[in-house]
C-alpha cells in the first residue's frame, strides 16, 4: 500500500512538472529555501537542451544562495566555497569554478531571484546546493536531465538529503504499526528493556518531565515540578522521533492510551492540609532499574517508588516518609471512577487517606484500573 502511494505521488509529481513544460516553451521551476536548512523542492527533471526558468525564493530566515553544479561535484563545490575564506562574503560564497554551471547569489529572507538557462544536452543528475557556510552539507537537491523524465525511487535517491527520502509516506507514519516499528530500529546502542526512563518534553507536563516505561506495557509521566505522577498509559512507550530531529519545538508522543490522569496538583500533604505545599525535587535512585523519586514537601523528605501491579492492571505506589512528625494525607483521584484503590495503611475519611506519622513511614497505594482489566480480557 505504501509503495503504491509513493509511486502514485511520484507519478502525480512528474505529471505536474511535465505540465509546466509545454513544447517549445521554457520549463519553469520554483524552488524555495525553507526553514531547517532545506529546499522545498529537492528534485525535478527537465529534458536535455530545454529552456529552464528557475525562480529561487528565500522563504527562510537565514541567508541562502543556489548553485547548480556538474554531476557528482556538489561536495567539491561546497569545499571550494569554504576555501574562499576571506573572499567568501564578497563572492557570495560562489567559488569560481568550471564545476559551477549556474548560480544565484545570497538572498535575504523574502527575496526572489530567477535565472534562465538552457539545460545541458548531456543527461545526468545535476546537483543544486546552497554554499552558505555550513549549509552545503545538508541543503541540496537535484535536477535530473533526461529525455524520458524518469527519476529514481525517492526512497533510494542518492542525490537528495536523507531526511527527505521519506517525504512521500508521511501519512503512513500515522499508522500505529509503523510508529512501533520505527521504535524498534535502534534508538540506542542497547535494547531498552523496561523499566527505563527518559527526561524529556512531554504533553501536559512541565518542561522538566520524566517518562518511565514499566513492564506489562505500562508507562507513566512524573513531573518534578509538582513532584507527582501526572498521567499513566498503556500500550507502547513514547516516540521521540520529532524531538531527536533537533532544532524544532516538539514533545515526545505517547504510544497507547491514557488510563489515569491526576486531578490534584499536590495529592500528598504533610501537616497543614489547607496550605499549598512547597515541593522540591531532589533526584532519583534506581532500584532494580525502577526510579525511586526523592523530594521534599514543606521540607520533609519523601521517597516514592512506582511499580506495575503484578497482573498489569494498575500501579502500586510506595511512599516512604521517614520523618513526617505530623499527620499525612493522600488524596486519591476520585474522578477516576473506574479505578479501585487499596491502601496498606491509614484511614479513608471522606475520600481522603489519613495516616499517622508512623504509618506514613512506609505505605502503598494500589490502583486497579478497570479499563486495563477489560482491555486485557479483550485480548
Amino acid at each position: 500500500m505504501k509503495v503504491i502511494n509513493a509511486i502514485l505521488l511520484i507519478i502525480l509529481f512528474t505529471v505536474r512538472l511535465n505540465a509546466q513544460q509545454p513544447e517549445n516553451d521554457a520549463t519553469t521551476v520554483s524552488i524555495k529555501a525553507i526553514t531547517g536548512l532545506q529546499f522545498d523542492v529537492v528534485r525535478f527533471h527537465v529534458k536535455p537542451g530545454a529552456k529552464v526558468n528557475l525562480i529561487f525564493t528565500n522563504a527562510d530566515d537565514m541567508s541562502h544562495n543556489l548553485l547548480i553544479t556538474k554531476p557528482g561535484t556538489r561536495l567539491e563545490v561546497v569545499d571550494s566555497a569554504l576555501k574562499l575564506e576571506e573572499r567568501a562574503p564578497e563572492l557570495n560564497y560562489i567559488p569560481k569554478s568550471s564545476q559551477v554551471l549556474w548560480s544565484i547569489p545570497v538572498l535575504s529572507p523574502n527575496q526572489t531571484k530567477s535565472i534562465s538557462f538552457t539545460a545541458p544536452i548531456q543527461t545526468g543528475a545535476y546537483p543544486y546546493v546552497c554554499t552558505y557556510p555550513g549549509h552545503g552539507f545538508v541543503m541540496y537537491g537535484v535536477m535530473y536531465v533526461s529525455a524520458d523524465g524518469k527519476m529514481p525511487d525517492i526512497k533510494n535517491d542518492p542525490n537528495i538529503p536523507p531526511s527527505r527520502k521519506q517525504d512521500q509516506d508521511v501519512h503512513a507514519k500515522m499508522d500505529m504499526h509503523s510508529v512501533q516499528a520505527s521504535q524498534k530500529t535502534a534508538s540506542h546502542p542497547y535494547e531498552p528493556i523496561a523499566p527505563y526512563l527518559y527526561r524529556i518534553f512531554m504533553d501536559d507536563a512541565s518542561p522538566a518531565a520524566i517518562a518511565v516505561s514499566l513492564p506489562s506495557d505500562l508507562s507513566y509521566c512524573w513531573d518534578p515540578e509538582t513532584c507527582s505522577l501526572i498521567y499513566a498509559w498503556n500500550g507502547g512507550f513514547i516516540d521521540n522521533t520529532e524531538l531527536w530531529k533537533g532544532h524544532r519545538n516538539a514533545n515526545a508522543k505517547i504510544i497507547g492510551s491514557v488510563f489515569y490522569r491526576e486531578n490534584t496538583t499536590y495529592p500528598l500533604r504533610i501537616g497543614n492540609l489547607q496550605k499549598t505545599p512547597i515541593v522540591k525535587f531532589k533526584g532519583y535512585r534506581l532500584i532494580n532499574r525502577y526510579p525511586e523519586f526523592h523530594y521534599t514537601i514543606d521540607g520533609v523528605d519523601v521517597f516514592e517508588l512506582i511499580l506495575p501491579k503484578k497482573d498489569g492492571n494498575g500501579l502500586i505506589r510506595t511512599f516512604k516518609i521517614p520523618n513526617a512528625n505530623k499527620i499525612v494525607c493522600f488524596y486519591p483521584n476520585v474522578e477516576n471512577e473506574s479505578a479501585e484503590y487499596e491502601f496498606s495503611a491509614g484511614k479513608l475519611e471522606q475520600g481522603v487517606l489519613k495516616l499517622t506519622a508512623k504509618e506514613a513511614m512506609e505505605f502503598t497505594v494500589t490502583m486497579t484500573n478497570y479499563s486495563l482489566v477489560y482491555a486485557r480480557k479483550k485480548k
Partner: protein
Amino acid sequence: MPGKRNKMKFKIFYSLAASFLIFVSAILVEHDPVKEAYTVENIKTPDGLTAETGGITFLPDGRLVACFIRGEVMIYDPKSKEWKLFAEGLHEPLGILAVNNSEFIIMQRPELTRVKDTDGDGQADVYEKVTDDFGLSGNYHEFNYGPVKDKEGNLFVSFNTASPGGNVKSKIRGEFYPLGRDNQPGLYEMYSVVPNRGWVMKVTSDGKIQPYASGLRSPNGLGFDQQGNLFVTDNQSDWVETSTLYHIKEGNFYGHPASLVWTKDWKRGNPFTIPINELDSMRTKAAVLFPQGIMANSPSQPLCDITEGKFGPFAGQLFVGEMNRDRIVRVMLEKVGGEFQGACIPFIDGHGLRKGNNRLAFAPDGSLWVGQITFGWGGDYGIQRIVYNGEQPTDVYSMKLTAKGFDLTFTQPLDKARAMDLNNYKFRHYYYKYQRKPKNEGADLSTQQDLQNVSVKHIKISADRKKISLILDELKPGYIYELKLGDITNAEGKPLDNKLICYTLNKLVLADNSK
C-alpha cells in the same frame, strides 16, 4: 642471447642496489619529510549509538566519558577500545564534568545533575539534583552548557536564549516575563522570557546558583585558561554581528539585550527600547571576533592547551571548535590596556576532521579529542582525536600588537627572502556593527563595515628568523585586522599550514609601552 642475460643480471643488481639504498635511507631519515604535524583519527562509536556528542571529558583513570543527545553517558577505554554504558535517560545533556571515576556532574536540559555509581557495578544508580533553579519555557533553543570548574570549586554554566523559530509551552518553569522578548517588527530576536536565559551562572559548592554575567545569545562553550580566566564563545546573529570569544567577568553585560530583564532590581522595563548608544556603552566587547563566513560561524567550546608541549608548540593558547565546517580554530590572546584581545587562526582544516565540532578534551597522552554534533543543523556525528606527531608545525605561533603594527612569531625559522617580501602580507581591516538585526536581513548574514586594504610600510626580521615585525600604514581601535599570508616557508621550503589570521584590535598599545 648472452647480451640479454647480462642485461637481466644488471637489472637485478640495479634493483637490489635501489632497494638497499631505500632501506638505508629509511634508517637514516627518521622522519618522513611529508609527515604532517597533526593526524586526525576516528574513534569507533558503538553500533546503534546516534553519536550526537554533547560532552566529553577524561577520567582520572585515563578513560573517556561522553554524553550524547539521546541521553546516554558512555565510557570509552582507549586501551581496549571498548565502550560501556554508564547512564541513560538524560534530557539533552550538553556538558559533563568528572568528579571522580564513578561520579559526574552533567548539564542536562532541566537540571544540573550529579550522576553516580554507588554500588560499584559500573552503571549509575543515583541521579541527584545539583540545581534546577532556572527557567524553562519549553522552547527548543534553550540549550544549557557547561559545567566548568574554577580553582575554588565553583561551577559555571551558561543558558541559551529561546529562538523565535519555536514557541513557549503553556506549562513553563520559572517566572514568565514577556519583556524579555523584542516586540518590534522583525523576525530574529532571540528571547529571554524565563530566568536566566542569556546568562552565565555560577553554582557554588553548596548548590546555590547565582547570576554571573548577562548579554549572551547562544553561549555554546565555556573554558578557563591556566590563570583562571573564564572565556565563553557566542554565536553570530541578532545583536551579535559576528561570533565572539568573551572574557567573562562577574556583573558584566556582553551585548544581547534580552537577558537584561533578569538583572537584579531591573527597572528599565523593555531592554530593547534602550538607545543603541547606551547599550553599546553598557556592553563589554569581545576579546576576539571570529569573522562570519571567514573564520567561524558557530564556534563552540574553548579549551586551553594544558599539555605543556605534548600537543605541540601552542601550550597555553585556546582551541575552539567550529560547528559549520571541518575546522578547529586557535586563539592567541594578549593583554592590551589591561584587557584581553588577540587573534584567531585556523588550527586544522580538513585532514579528515569532520564538521560539527562541538566538544573538546585533552587525553592524558596529550591528544585532542573532538566530539561532533548536528542535532538538526549542519554538523556531523562522532568522536575523533587529533594526535601530534612530534613534527614541528609551520605556523604562526603568536600575533602581538605593537605601537605601529604587529609582531608575528612563527613556530620555525623562516626562509628570509620570502619572509621579507612585503607582498606576502596582505592586511585588510573592517568592523562589525553592534546593532539590532535589520528587519529582513538573513539571520546568519554579517556585513563587514569600512572594509579597506591596509598597507605594510616596513618589515623587519629577527636574527633567529622567527619573528617578523610589521609597521602598518595605520591602526584603528574597534577594527579587525585580517592578515592573509602569502608564499612564506620555513628554512626548508615547507609552506605555512595556515595563512589567514584575524586580530581583534579593541585597544591600541601606547607608544611608550611598546618596548
